[in-house]
């Protein structure tokens, strides 16, 4: 892979050049409640914000919203036009972490047949946006209490699936080109980069190792108790074990929305100009009506059945269907849970109960 060094100043210039013919989103710090500064994505408008923040762990939001809008009109009817009307301007997203990039792979599996599984059912809306969205990932330079990517096959940096990757080091970033598309983003911008020095590569490795070690250390107590590799988890536990871990769940579905691999949606029809429109909206398997059919029968009427389904979907069903464990260890479901449900504890409890049953 091609690598180069770019100073922070030149990175801002580079982003400015991209912004001329792309929508560019970058992580910046927002001053929100309680003076707490939280980085989140912001659209680059006239100027590249100086508050660009590349340090820290994964952002609060996943980049899935850039390819899978929370709400999007997918059809207007009546219509005899068989072609999809898709708007997907070229977009550059700076800031996704390793966990986020791995998360996008689930969207490819579900929505993009030529690449993966779903045969004839290519989704034009997702594919166009995926094709026109450049991923500029960033190494994690810190980890949250809730991060556990290294325990589910990930790294605190992107190993594949990115177009460019930025590894913050002293004075700037080591920039790695991960795809032909990424190469395209760098063409004509050679004046902004210099050859990467050996000590800069070493610094990157040092930083990566230190974050990895921190995540491993913090999660040892959860995962050392689990027999076998994470790819072989079997979370089919007793009703009692699942009911116990679900006690504090209020089915708010924040975990579904925060998750980088929750791909489910609901189609909603309503009146619109000239007829009707059908929109696709994020939907959540923790909602009571998710599996309910006409007449009221519900395959997952109990909340503990729904929480169980969510976790087993991540670890087992996606693995069996797509060959992909879709928990990326980003920890966001733990961060956002108002009932303080920690999926690491859930897994440990269910497996411990099972072992002692």
């Amino acid at each position, binding site marked *: 892979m091609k690598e180069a060094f770019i100073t922070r100043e030149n990175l801002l210039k580079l982003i400015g050049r991209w912004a001329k013919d792309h929508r560019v989103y970058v992580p910046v710090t927002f001053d929100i409640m309680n003076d707490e500064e939280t980085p989140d994505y912001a659209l680059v408008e006239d100027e590249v914000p100086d508050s660009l923040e590349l340090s820290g762990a994964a952002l609060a939001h996943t980049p899935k919203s850039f390819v899978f809008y929370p709400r999007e009109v*997918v*059809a207007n*009817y*009546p*219509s*005899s*036009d*068989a*072609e*999809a*009307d*898709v708007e997907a301007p070229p977009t550059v997203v700076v800031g996704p972490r390793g966990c986020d990039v791995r998360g996008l792979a689930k969207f490819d599996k*579900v*929505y993009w047949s030529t690449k993966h599984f*779903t045969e004839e*059912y*290519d*989704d*034009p809306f997702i*594919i*166009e946006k995926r094709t026109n969205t450049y991923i500029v990932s960033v190494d994690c330079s810190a980890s949250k209490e809730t991060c556990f990517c290294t325990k589910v096959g990930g790294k605190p940096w992107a190993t594949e699936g990115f177009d460019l990757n930025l590894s913050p080091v002293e004075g700037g970033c080591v920039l790695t080109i991960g795809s032909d598309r990424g190469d395209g983003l760098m063409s004509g911008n050679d004046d902004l980069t210099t050859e990467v020095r050996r000590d800069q590569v070493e610094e990157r490795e040092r930083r990566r190792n230190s974050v990895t070690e921190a995540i491993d250390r913090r999660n040892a107590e959860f995962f050392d108790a689990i027999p076998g590799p994470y790819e072989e988890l079997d979370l089919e536990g007793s009703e009692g074990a699942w009911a116990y871990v679900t006690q504090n769940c209020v089915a708010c579905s924040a975990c579904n929305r925060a998750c980088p691999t929750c*791909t*489910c*949606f*609901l*189609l*909603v*029809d*309503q*009146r619109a100009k000239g*007829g*009707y429109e*059908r929109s*696709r909206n994020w*939907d959540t*398997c923790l909602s009571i009506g*998710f*599996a*309910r*059919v*006409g*007449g*009221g*029968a519900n*395959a997952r009427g109990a909340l503990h059945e729904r929480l169980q*389904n969510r976790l*087993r*979907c991540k670890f*087992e*069903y*996606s*693995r*069996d*269907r797509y060959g992909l464990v879709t928990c990326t260890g980003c920890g966001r479901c733990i961060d956002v849970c108002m009932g303080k449900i920690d999926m690491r504890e859930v897994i440990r409890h269910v497996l411990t109960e099972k072992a002692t049953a």
Partner: protein
Amino acid sequence: MKNLYRPIESVIEDIKQETRNITTYRFRPKEPITFEAGQFVELTVPGVGEAPFTPSSNPNVTDTMEITIMRVGSVTEALAKLKVGDVVGIRGPYGNGYDLSEFEGREILIVGGGVGLAPLRSLILALFDDINRYKKVSIRYGARTPGDIVYKDLLPEWAKMPRTEVLQTIDEPHPEWSGTVGVVTVLIDELPLLTTVDIEVPFDPETAIACVCGPPIMLKFVNMALLGKGFRPENIYHSMERNMSCGLGKCGHCMLGEYYVCKDGPVMTAAQIEKFEDPF
């Protein structure tokens, strides 16, 4: 790229009341929609939404499509207000149908409960089109009361078809009913098997096919009854009832473990689902 979510305009051509809450509609789609018996479509009531239905008409008739629908939710309630000439939308077909080439030369048992006979009707009509390819078609149908029986005028006609028999039951005794009483499994208890002597065409449980459709609780007990009779799990086809919302294996509503019922079903064999504790 083709838009998967666009409904194809379809005109309501005929409406026939089957029971107090079940109606058969005939639609004429503006663009042809062909399907195999067992596949389903998404029916749109404009501005209200979509719901999945398996057509009940002959799959070999391609210019129109009939669907028998029970009024149970928001889409079907809204549909009930529409009249002949009104326009709805149809997307599809989706999922797997019955592989009729597998049925050749075998006894075929069709077990329906209530409105569950509707999806089976398209299978029955497809079988009738080539009835000599099959050893026997035995239709066993249960309804709650005589008033809940669908296709009242068709059932006696079906019984006249060669190699075909129609047996019926209702759940509880009723003054207007002189036939068999009991849930539909009573019609399986008396199934003439190969071991039964003096039966012209007995069922060979090793090879006989069963196609089952009805409410989840019925599927569960019919499944147990058929396995008890020695039917092989790979020969028992269930119409799985799940919330198939997009029909494309994406939205997640119909997931059953790693299966999307809309893609891997809606017709699934007992062998496919036997690993689940209660798949119905």
